[in-house]
């Protein structure tokens, strides 16, 4: 038998952890985010990042994108438990490696320093669609959209150019092509 997640028995087998992106469509009502997040914390699941906003004004539907890690069994439980919540309409899940899905995070970098460093910082971001949102003589605010690990890397690399503050979102996801999440 494959081993279980029972808290009361010990298990010798180590299962592989995968990173999954779970997309949840919910009624945008009071407390709904607390329900979803509380389910994760209450059952001991991880949340790596979280993005949430209303996507349908008329039907008052919000779309929550959660990046989580777990064994296949845990991820399956997460999905099934989410589907049980009354305000949840639909749950989609895919692996981070899934080629059929695009996912992106956004980051804002504030760089403070002399002009040459500001320029070099902007240049370093070139691969990630940098947008200069604010510029003064001493500072830049650069917006990039990229993958999580790319933003991780940039947050490190930009330090030498005078990075003083980072603000970033959780991942959002969308299927490629004409398909939509089922």
């Amino acid at each position: 038998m494959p081993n279980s997640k029972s808290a009361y028995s010990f298990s010798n087998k180590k299962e592989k952890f995968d990173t999954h992106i779970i997309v949840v469509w919910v009624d945008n009502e009071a407390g709904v985010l607390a329900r979803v997040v509380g389910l994760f914390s209450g059952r001991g699941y991880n949340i790596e990042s979280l993005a949430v906003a209303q996507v349908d004004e008329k039907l008052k539907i919000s779309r929550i994108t959660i990046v989580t890690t777990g064994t296949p069994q845990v991820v399956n439980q997460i999905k099934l438990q989410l589907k049980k919540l009354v305000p949840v309409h639909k749950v989609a899940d895919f692996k981070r490696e899934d080629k059929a899905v695009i996912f992106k995070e956004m980051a804002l970098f504030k760089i403070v320093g002399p002009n040459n460093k500001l320029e070099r910082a902007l240049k370093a971001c070139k691969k990630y669609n940098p947008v200069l949102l604010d510029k003064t003589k001493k500072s830049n605010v650069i917006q990039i959209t990229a993958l999580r690990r790319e933003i991780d890397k940039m947050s490190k690399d930009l330090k030498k150019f005078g990075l003083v503050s980072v603000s970033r979102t959780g991942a959002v996801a969308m299927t490629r092509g004409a398909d939509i999440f089922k």
Partner: protein
Amino acid sequence: MSKLYSGAEIVFKCMEDQNVDHIFGYPGGAVLPIYDELQNFKSIKHVLVRHEQGAGHAAEGYARSSGKPGVILVTSGPGATNVVTALTDAYMDSIPLVCISGQVPTHLIGTDAFQECDTTGITRPCTKHNWLVKDINDLAETIHKAFEVATTGRPGPVLVDIPKDIQFQKTKYKKPKNENKLNGKSHNHFNQNSIDQLIDLMSKSSKPIFYTGGGVINSGPKASELLRELVYATGFPITSTLQGLGSFPGDDNQFLGMLGMHGTYEANNAMHDCDLMINIGARFDDRITGKIDEFSPNSKKVHIDIDPSSINKNVKVDLAIVGDVKTVLSSILKSLKQKKSKFLKSNKQKTSKWWEKIQKWRSVRSLDYIGSEETIKPQYAIERLYELTKDKDSYITTEVGQHQMWAAQHYKFNKPNRWMTSGGLGTMGYGLPAAVGVQVAHPKKLVIDIAGEASVLMTIQEMSTAVQYNLPIKIFILNNQYMGMVRQWQELLHDKNYSESYTAALPDFVKLAEAYNCVGIRAKTPEELDDKIIEMLNIDRPVIFDCMVDKVENCFPMIPSGKPHNQMILGPKDQENKKITGKGKSLV
């Protein structure tokens, strides 16, 4: 123009339309407008408890014995927090409850007002869903929805929090809608293909077993009837979880007794050695499975459950059928009759060796105990209670601990909805208020709370409720002066260091009964036990029965923690040979 009703009136209008006849509650500042309306709704009787936890458990007892949702009415703040244990209990055991709580007026929410607490926040993880009603126009719809959520799919508790100003405001009343959509939360879609697969597995199996649980009870009395039909049609052995007792006759030859930590030797060994396990409405709880890695290693497993998240949660299964037990069972029976009308005959040969093996396990007589003529053995007390009440269609509730396990082992249930016990959460103090609720639902029936002296003290105040409403519940206390199960674990795992498990100053339960204005009876010797029990049964008033039992008796058989089904401790002698060591010690 239609009539306008206040929020408080709407609460009762909704209850009328939901056929509520009893509510269990306790008044307070934030629900006074609702209590003010109570007198105008004659069809709804209010049972005043002595503590909100009691209201919750009473509502659970009411729900479990009647199949209807239990309704609770409490005030804000402490009223709501006191009911949390009962809500959690109902959530774990899938009992439908609707809890209406008062809240401070909307303009005071968030100001740390008097008796304010974040009720929906606190109860979010222990309810199926909850609502804070901030607009009077949503009230009726929300309450109807609350009843729907509580009673459909896998049942469970819900809570509606109503601020005091909403209770005063007026609006039109909306009747419940008849649509039963529930946002896709009720699952009853399985296909014929999986039924066929199951029948195929059944006909190939030579060592089958049915493992049934509370889901059969929750699916209604019809499900228990169908289960019996199926078990007789197949000739397979059947075992049941704590919660499933009564769905199949406890004295039937095909019934192997309860399984799990304190289950019978034959049930657990059959679970371990079977080649086909058919789980009907149970959830592979850790008290059932024992060591999960070695749980029934060579069997095909089938899981029938209404909750998709129960499937593959603890144990991976080979075939899952998601649906209501009643519907699935009638499907199986229909197919069985069509395709294998001679099933029993053709199968008898195949399973005969299996039954021989089971008989061998049975002959171990794992529920036996060493009797005594001086002291009352707790098992003996339950046996006598059973023998003297078995013709009475009695309803049994319990607290939590050794007495609960002895009751499950030695009291035989033949009908569903007769056995109310806190299984998932294991709430001491459950049984007395639950008995109050059961008696409210069944005024003419015999209702007994098989209790321990430690548990019963947690909610003893509800005796006062029983007396107020002339509810002739019988509190049958197996009094060993210890928290028996704690003592047993300390003996087995903590080198007999009985840390804080002895209650050095117990009340005199007979005098306590008199103080509550009910009847106290004490039995000290096996000789007088029968007469005293008969005396108790002949009293049409609430009784506290103080049964002084052996102080150090342990509950056997037992699967020690960290061990699989086939390594049970059978009794005191066996205990020495199978000491719990190493990692097993750290498990609960």
